[in-house]
């Protein structure tokens, strides 16, 4: 049965938690109540990426793009748009419609090119048929029946696809190692243990397009000669786990997983393994140890997993985003893929834009796009008109990019050359209100907490660095501390066993490099210009401005503000916990922060 309209409702975790489900139910109810449930079909899709404006509803065929839709709007959408064919203007992103009403006309989408996220927000991830209708599993068919293993590997190598987990190792080369390794058994592993703070593209891909990962893993299985795959996914992602489980079951039912796939003599199956809250398991050797049922601790490489991996057998291990690229490369060819991107980095990269930016969300851009385009054209600039300070990329393994480097075309090499890292693609934008020492302390706290403790440089070096940063943030640092930080950082880089320890000092090196003056301010003047380091700041009431409204005294959680009504108040500095609630509450700018 053909429907006149299709109503796509986002059902990613972000929109789901902002009343997406209630919205879906309300639309369902309204369609029935107004008697048009045979004319319009409701579809639950994956994430549109524009989470800042969620929940999002897109109506086909005219591609109207409604933002911030509440369940109360359901009745209007149905009566106006579905029945009368008129757009509900007040829900459109661009209300004066100067640039059009579809998603493509929105700045947020204009500079994007969606390969990995091609199906997110388009298909219902819970139905395999919708994936198949969008050329899903066609690449697998091509690989099984029309291509040799060497052709597949050559295609990937020519395409120039590099690992999207952060290190950027050429995928085709990796597969070649495993294919050529002699072994009675080989394995395929998907690394979905995404843990970088600020990155969530793997979660969105698993939630919005799980079959693309399954298809790519099966292609790898056929190419290298493996019959078993594992997806290792974080326990923190309940919805992604549910969608993957469902996708695996459907693929088995359709004969796309299991014995004799598509009637050929090739058999392959995939199992899900859940993480248990250990960031280090995102490191490939630690991840494999975890699948084997051991503590998730890394082991020295080489040998690399490609030749000696799971249970000592050759194992191809790739990140979710890398997998999601593969079916498209097989279908459209390496020439097409390698035409996108820069000299050394081909294709697109998904970034998660977060922090002090207007349009936070998930974006996919060709490699070589500049940070300025990402932050200002797509991201819509800095929130509340504040001044851009730095963008942090690569999570706890990366560094900061400052204003002067905003025009660097982003690829693996260029980011490394300015002391940051592609990492998994988290991009946290900071403004003048963020303290660089505080931010660095955050990352160190994270890596110290998540260090597995196996090797001393990471275990002890990380902790010592954290302690020094803590001292600096309390105004007790010395100038020599900066040298100690740098020395320790070098030692950790050289001597740590795995990527976690080797890259943990990157935030320190990068921030000292760009913001040494701020460190010096903390050390020499005991001053934090952003007002984030609590020990270096205080709140005081300006007597002339205070009218004695008592608003601050009422909001103070420790009752340290005293004063008569209509008379200036005073903050007891000894008791003040610097929560800043009085500062936010005061309507007369009578509270001074600094």
């Amino acid at each position, binding site marked *: 049965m053909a429907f006149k309209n299709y109503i796509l409702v986002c059902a990613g975790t972000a929109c789901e*938690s902002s009343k997406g489900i209630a919205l879906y139910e309300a639309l369902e109810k309204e369609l029935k109540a107004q008697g048009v449930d045979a004319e319009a079909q409701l579809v639950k899709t994956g994430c549109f990426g524009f989470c800042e404006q969620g929940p999002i509803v897109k109506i086909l065929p005219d591609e109207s793009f409604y933002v911030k839709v509440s369940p109360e709007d359901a009745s209007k959408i149905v009566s106006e748009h579905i029945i009368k064919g008129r757009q509900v203007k007040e829900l459109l992103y661009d209300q004066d419609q100067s640039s059009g009403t579809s998603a493509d006309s929105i700045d947020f989408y204009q500079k994007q090119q969606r390969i990995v996220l091609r199906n997110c927000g388009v298909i219902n991830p819970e139905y395999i048929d919708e994936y198949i209708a969008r050329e899903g599993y066609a690449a697998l068919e091509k690989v099984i029946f029309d291509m040799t293993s060497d052709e597949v590997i050559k295609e990937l190598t020519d395409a120039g696809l590099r690992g999207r987990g952060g290190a950027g190792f050429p995928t085709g080369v990796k597969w070649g190692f495993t294919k050529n390794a002699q072994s009675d058994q080989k394995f395929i592993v998907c690394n979905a243990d995404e843990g970088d*703070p600020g990155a969530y593209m793997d979660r969105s891909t698993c939630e919005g397009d799980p079959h693309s990962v399954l298809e790519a893993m099966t292609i790898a299985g056929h190419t290298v000669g493996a019959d078993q795959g594992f997806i290792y996914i974080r326990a923190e992602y309940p919805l992604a786990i549910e969608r993957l489980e469902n996708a695996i079951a459907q693929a088995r039912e359709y004969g796309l997983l299991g014995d004799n796939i598509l009637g050929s003599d090739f058999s392959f199956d995939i199992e899900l393994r*859940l993480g248990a809250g250990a960031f280090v398991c995102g490191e490939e050797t630690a991840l494999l140890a975890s699948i084997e049922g051991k503590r998730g601790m890394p082991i020295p490489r080489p040998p690399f997993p490609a030749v000696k991996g799971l249970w000592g057998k050759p194992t191809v291990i790739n990140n979710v985003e890398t997998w999601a690229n593969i079916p498209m490369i097989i279908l459209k060819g390496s020439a097409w893929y390698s035409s996108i991107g820069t000299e050394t980095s081909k294709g697109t990269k998904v970034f*998660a834009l977060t922090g*002090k930016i207007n349009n936070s969300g998930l974006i996919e851009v060709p490699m070589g796009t500049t940070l300025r385009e990402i932050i200002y054209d797509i991201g819509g600039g800095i929130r509340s008109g504040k001044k851009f300070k730095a963008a*942090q990329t690569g999570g706890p393994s990366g560094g900061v990019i400052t204003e002067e480097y905003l025009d660097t075309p982003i690829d693996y090499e260029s980011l490394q050359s300015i002391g940051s890292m592609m990492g998994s693609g988290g991009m946290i934008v900071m403004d003048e209100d963020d303290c660089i020492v505080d931010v660095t302390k955050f990352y160190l706290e994270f890596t110290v907490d998540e260090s597995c403790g196996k090797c001393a440089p990471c275990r002890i070096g990380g902790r010592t660095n954290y302690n020094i940063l803590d001292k600096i943030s309390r105004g007790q640092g010395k100038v020599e501390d900066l040298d100690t930080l740098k020395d320790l950082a070098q030692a950790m880089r050289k001597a740590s066993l795995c990527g976690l320890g080797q890259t943990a000092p990157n935030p320190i090196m990068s921030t000292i490099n760009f913001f040494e003056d701020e460190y010096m301010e903390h050390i020499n003047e005991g001053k934090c210009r952003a007002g984030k380091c609590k020990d270096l700041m205080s709140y005081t009431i300006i007597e002339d401005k205070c009218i004695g409204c008592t608003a601050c005294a009422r909001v103070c959680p420790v009752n340290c503000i005293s004063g008569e009504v209509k008379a200036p108040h005073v903050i007891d500095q000894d008791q003040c916990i610097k*929560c800043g609630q009085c500062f936010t509450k005061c309507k007369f700018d009578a509270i001074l922060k600094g």
Partner: protein
Amino acid sequence: MLISEREQLRANIERRVIDFGNNRSALIPVIQEVQQKYGHVSEYVMQVLADVLHIHPVEVYGVASFYSFIGHKPKGRFIIRLCRTLPCEMKGKERVARQLENDLGIHFGETTDDGNFTLEWANCLGMCDQGPALLVNERIYTQVTPQSVHDILEECREVFGVHTTLQEKEMSCELPTSAK
């Protein structure tokens, strides 16, 4: 715990280990199931797993103590994990943390006396643009404010009616699906 209960638990573990392939690789999935069902992995469970998998109990303890989502001490029926990483910090996680501590009367890492709530930190829940985010058992809440903390806790408390017995409470630790 009664002897019969222990025997039943042992039988369950043995069965699940076989379901997962009857080798060391079954260890973590089975531990996770026990954790989900009982809220912690007791020494008895560790001994049983060691027996079934023919490994030393220390190996099992090593695994159980390594992962932060697995605990060997009993935890609350609702484990609240608040993301403490940078993006959530920028969106005001600190005030949410204070509110949680005040409302529950415990600090992070502790469990309430009635055994209902445990408060923990989490490192990134992948909701970085929707912060502050927290995880209650397996449900994610985003854009949490000090005000909405109250509603979330109330939602959890609704599961425990006044007249429910302890055993019934244990069975109904799932959050209502209509929540939020």
